[in-house]
């Protein structure tokens, strides 16, 4: 099991915490995108791609 460690996030986290933070950010970004960005013509899939990239960075380096 992964022990708590400190990466670029301001708190000590284990892998599950970082996954949780990634999902929270994914949902928040998706809702923000649907409300403000998608009406401008940018697809929701861009937000999904950004969220996945962000999740990988957070889980590996967070």
């Amino acid at each position, binding site marked *: 099991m992964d022990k708590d460690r400190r990466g670029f996030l301001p*708190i*000590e986290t284990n892998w599950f915490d970082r996954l*949780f933070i990634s999902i*929270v950010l994914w*949902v*928040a970004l*998706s*809702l923000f995108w*649907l*409300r403000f960005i*998608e009406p401008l013509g940018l697809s*929701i899939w861009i937000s999904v791609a950004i969220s996945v990239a962000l999740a990988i960075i957070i889980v590996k380096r967070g």
Partner: protein
Amino acid sequence: MQSKFLGWALLAPTLLILALFGVVPFIYVLFVSFHQWNPFGANPDMLFNWAGNYRKLVFDAQFLASLGVTAAFVFFAVLSELVLGYALAQALMRDFPGKAFFRTIHTLPLIMAPIIVGSVWKLMTTPSIGIIPNILSNWLGYDLNIGQSAWQAFATTVIMDIWHWTPLVTLTLIAALVSLPADPFEQAQIDGANRRQIFWHITLPMIRPAILATVFIRMMDAMRTVDEVLMLTGGGPGSATRYVGVHIFKEVFPRTNYGYGSAVSVIVLYLTIVVCWLMYVGLIAPRNKGKG
């Protein structure tokens, strides 16, 4: 190896129940939230519409307004319950005539079903027949009409929630106060600390976990309040008391809009988890750091 197996075997019933009654319904609600499903509408089939319900939700003015009134409701209700609950817990720690009787009486609201609480408060606040508008009108010359005044309706729902749930806070805090060791208090008194200093520097830090646990429970409960408010005001007047729970109820039951109602439920669950997690990270985790 054997103890590891025994541990999992003992946990198995709980995990099974949790999966059956917690995880499976959540996954189903999540599944439904990505569908347009109105079983009593023109097309009763479940149609996959990807993020359509969530797209509708972020533009739904009634939902966004309901989030605002729910936040206000949770803030005022939980804060008042905490302050009142602590005051009552401190009062009940002392001996006074009729203490046992008062303790029993003050716990009675807890055993009442929320829908009964809503009905009773509806009877008590109905203009012309209710006891509260009568007393306020005859004694103070104040007109209470929760069917017309938005802020009176809001305040009444907050007061009803306080009346219903303060005993829970009191009982939790009594349990915490009773379990405190006497030594730190005696030492503080010997050192000349006054009552305020003892409260801020000894009592409050020592009952902090109980306070936070109570706040979490009450917050989660208050964020999904439905039945009491539905009975008392029906979400009105206008949308003054249309809290998110009431909004979900109105979408799912009268309008049978299961897909959209599920999407709103998922977002409310998301917001509840995020708020509680932020409070945990901000208030509890830093204190536990270094304790192993």
